[in-house]
């Protein structure tokens, strides 16, 4: 117990983090330990190459997108506070917690989870998934299995499906609509973060 509280003391803004993310202190400590492991040089922040050093991540076809999701535009580093906030997207939704209408929307709400997924596609941050952007993701994920032209037609068709205003791109609203029936809470949550 003593060690727990002493670790907690080392973390800046702990209360705020707990408040904002809904993580329990135990989770925060665990994440903090992991953060320190990743931060090999002990600078107190991570840069993209720290993420690149995670060797399991190397297999992931969309790792670059996910890594860049940790960094806000123009910044080369991510501190622990932001790191935890990003992780909080994947906390399962807890139903027991009483809903307080005044409190701000929790980070792990459905629409925030969707926003996170959306920005993985929307690399130029214009609020729309263009055909090219989609194509890039598809290329990453499908890789060698299909040919370029097949990829293109898949991309076209995908956009057709979601594209309501016929601007040949998927806006966030359209993105959300297309996933209306999907149980996002289930699919964008990690069990051990509960």
């Amino acid at each position: 117990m003593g060690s727990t509280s002493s670790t907690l003391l080392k973390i800046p803004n702990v209360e705020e983090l707990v408040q904002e993310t809904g993580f329990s202190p135990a989770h925060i400590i665990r994440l903090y330990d992991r953060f320190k492991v990743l931060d090999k040089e002990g600078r107190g922040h991570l840069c993209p190459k720290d993420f690149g050093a995670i060797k399991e991540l190397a297999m992931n076809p969309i790792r670059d997108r996910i890594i860049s999701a940790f960094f806000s535009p123009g910044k080369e580093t991510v501190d622990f506070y932001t790191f935890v906030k990003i992780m909080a997207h994947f906390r399962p939704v807890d139903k027991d917690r009483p809903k307080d209408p005044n409190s701000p929307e929790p980070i792990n709400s459905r629409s925030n989870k969707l926003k996170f997924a959306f920005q993985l596609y929307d690399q130029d941050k214009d609020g729309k998934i263009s055909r090219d952007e989609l194509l890039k993701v598809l290329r990453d994920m499908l890789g060698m299995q299909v040919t370029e032209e097949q990829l293109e037609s898949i991309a076209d068709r995908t956009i057709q499906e979601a594209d309501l205003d016929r601007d040949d791109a998927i806006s966030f609203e359209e993105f959300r609509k297309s996933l209306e029936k999907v149980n996002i809470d289930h699919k964008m949550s990690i069990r051990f973060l509960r």
Partner: protein
Amino acid sequence: MALLRQCALLLALLIVFSTPCKAAALEVDIAEVGSNYSSKSTDTETSTNVTTPTITTLPIVIWKWHHVETPYLVALWILTCWLCKLVCELNHSFTSVIPESGLLIMMGFILGGIVWGADQAQTFKLLPVNFFYYLLPQIVLDASYCMPNKLFFSNLGAILVHAVIGTCWNAGTVGVALWACYEWGAMGTLNIGPLQFLLFGALMSAVDPVAVIAVFEEVHVNEVLYILVFGESLLNDGVTVVLYNVFDAFVSLGGPKINAEEIIKGIISFFVVAFGGSFLGVVFAILISMLTRVTKNVQVIEAGFIIVLGYLSYLTAEMLSLSAILSITFCGVCCQKYINANMDEKSVTTLRYTLKVMANGSETMIFVFLGVSAIDRNIWVWNTGFILLTILFIIVFRFMGVFFLNWLLNKTRLIPIDITDQIVMSYGGLRGAVAYGLAAILDEKKIPEKNLMLGTTLIVVYFTVVLQGITMKPFVQWLKVKKATISDLTLNGKINNRTFEHTLTAMEDICGRMGDNWWTRHWKHFEEKYVCWLLMNSDARKHNDNIFGAFHKLNLEDAKNYVTAGEKKGSLAFIRNDDNASVDFKKKLALDYANFMPDMMSDMSEYDFGIDNVPVVSGMKNQIPSVSLDIHEQDRKSMPDDLNAHHLLEQHLYKSRRFNRPTYSRSHYKSSENPDEMQEIFQRTMRSRLESFKSAKMGVNPAKKLSKHPKKDSSHKPNGKPADPNRTYPYGDEDFEYSADSASSSEIAGHFPRRSTNAPGAGVDNPAFIPEVDTSAPMRNPPWQTEPGNNTAVAPSQRLPWTPTNLRHLAPLRRSARSADSIAMADASVDEEAPEEKPGKHNTRL
């Protein structure tokens, strides 16, 4: 009359076989009985058409009833049972209240009553041997083969907990509680010991998949709940049989001989039998998958292999005294993915439907015979206390077990199981034929009160299947249980799923923990690397991608809908040269026309480009499409213009030749692969291309200038809608949207898995039709018919065989046997035809 009754009795004896181990002895019996019978009948009956031992003259026809009676009666009973199902399904307002299984049981009562009335004895009943060897396997195989794989494995933990621990709990508590009540004196005096009670508890704990599917299929609860109940009932059968055998052995041993050692042995045997059976199933699944890699040449019986091997996995497990039900379950679940990929799409469909027919058929028979079996004076030993307490205990302990286990599971589950779901799970513990079968094989020597147990089992089955079945639906509605959301197959969903998966694994990696996704990912990796290599043929491996599969399936659906909608809207009328219909098509054409050609051109250029760098092509080139777009082609061909008689004749002559070719082949379905025809087609193609090229040069056939049109813009093709909203409709023809409604209905189509070997490209372009595409131009406008007004129709007609706008997404995947140079030629001809096109089209419109 007496004779009739005797016959019936005899036949009944024959149909209702005893055990197969006595088969030889039985055969002798049959022979004896048969000879007795024939001699008897000759005694009593003097009519001449009965075989007589001594033949005085050559008989023309002979009455040989006893030669066929066994199979004949079996067939008749099958027919009767299925007719019962037919009668039950006649009125849907009835089945919506009472589940079909309940109705079938009631039908069984009636049939049993009729038999009883005729024979004054029970001559037909469900024998455990028949049930376990001939009726149950296909039901389990079908259920496991059609199991939603991913859902099953992702909930396997919960299912196993319920199936193993829950079943043991039920068996133990029901047995002990009944015994306690007996000791307390609630049942009067019975000759049942504690071990027998436990044995009874074990057989009572079998939640029956057949009954559960029958009821839950009509209720449409959410998929997690469904898979929990269904998976549990499936695995639980296996566990129950194992438990039953263990307790049966204990009963045989007798109370005093059971010591700690025997109990430990019993527990070990429980696990060996259960896991051994599952393992055997996996082994058979691997065998099946490997076998389907090489069955390409015997496609007709391909589907049969799976059924036979599945059955063998059942029998083998039975032979090794492992759990047969678990074996066939895991066999079906594990092999489904690989065999679906390996086999031809037709075989997959065949397998699916065959299994469905067999499973539904035996299910029907089981329920009817559960009813028929009730009409027997001997089995009804009434003991109110015993029966009522059994019903009470199975319900109470089931609720307790389910709630307790779910409480445990919910501690770790990502999405906890709702309280309403838990109630439905508990209430869905229907007992069925497995319990009856197990009760029926109880040995009367060891268990003196067998008939009481059998009767009680029957009552429990009726109670759960009929009463709980009837109340299930209102109950589910009243509890407001989450219903299944019918999610459409969308590419968006598929793609995003993939993204989510990758994101989650990445996050887990970043957190440095091994979560669920870690396992999924590593299994996938392993599967891709080794399992698929071992179990899938190379063609299937190449196209083994989820997203691409969805894409392929959607395209197929679109194509089908396009055809059906096209037919509905009058293309057939057009073939009869109906003016109205033709006008429609012309308009449609005119609309498509505007931005269609550029599409085609760009597609074709892509195609040209792609053909060299696509390694897959060679595999697909020669394939005949899985979906034949015959009608489609036909429609498009006949759509465009004023048909002149020549063209009509030509087309039909060609067709008729195609169709009149003898299409029956003992072992092949495909008829379009005739080399002669291909040769002919090729020659025709070349000739006609040459002609069209010439005529184009002479300026006979006008065409549109292609280069003027902007490159295609994919926003113009929302799924199935008329292309561009901004485009003017020169004829006020906005309602020509036949694929708009078809697109919306596209989700109805079946959920059969994709055949990966049939790559989309192969499914789109039927080489058999290519020649006609090209011949059409010169043929339709023979020189003597070339008038200014008529010319115009030709150009559109050339376009038509290509994909219409609303199916544009099909286009880029075209990959036909057409050579690149032919395309170049087509391009050339079109280009040359360009100048006069516009005015021509104008004419048509007016």
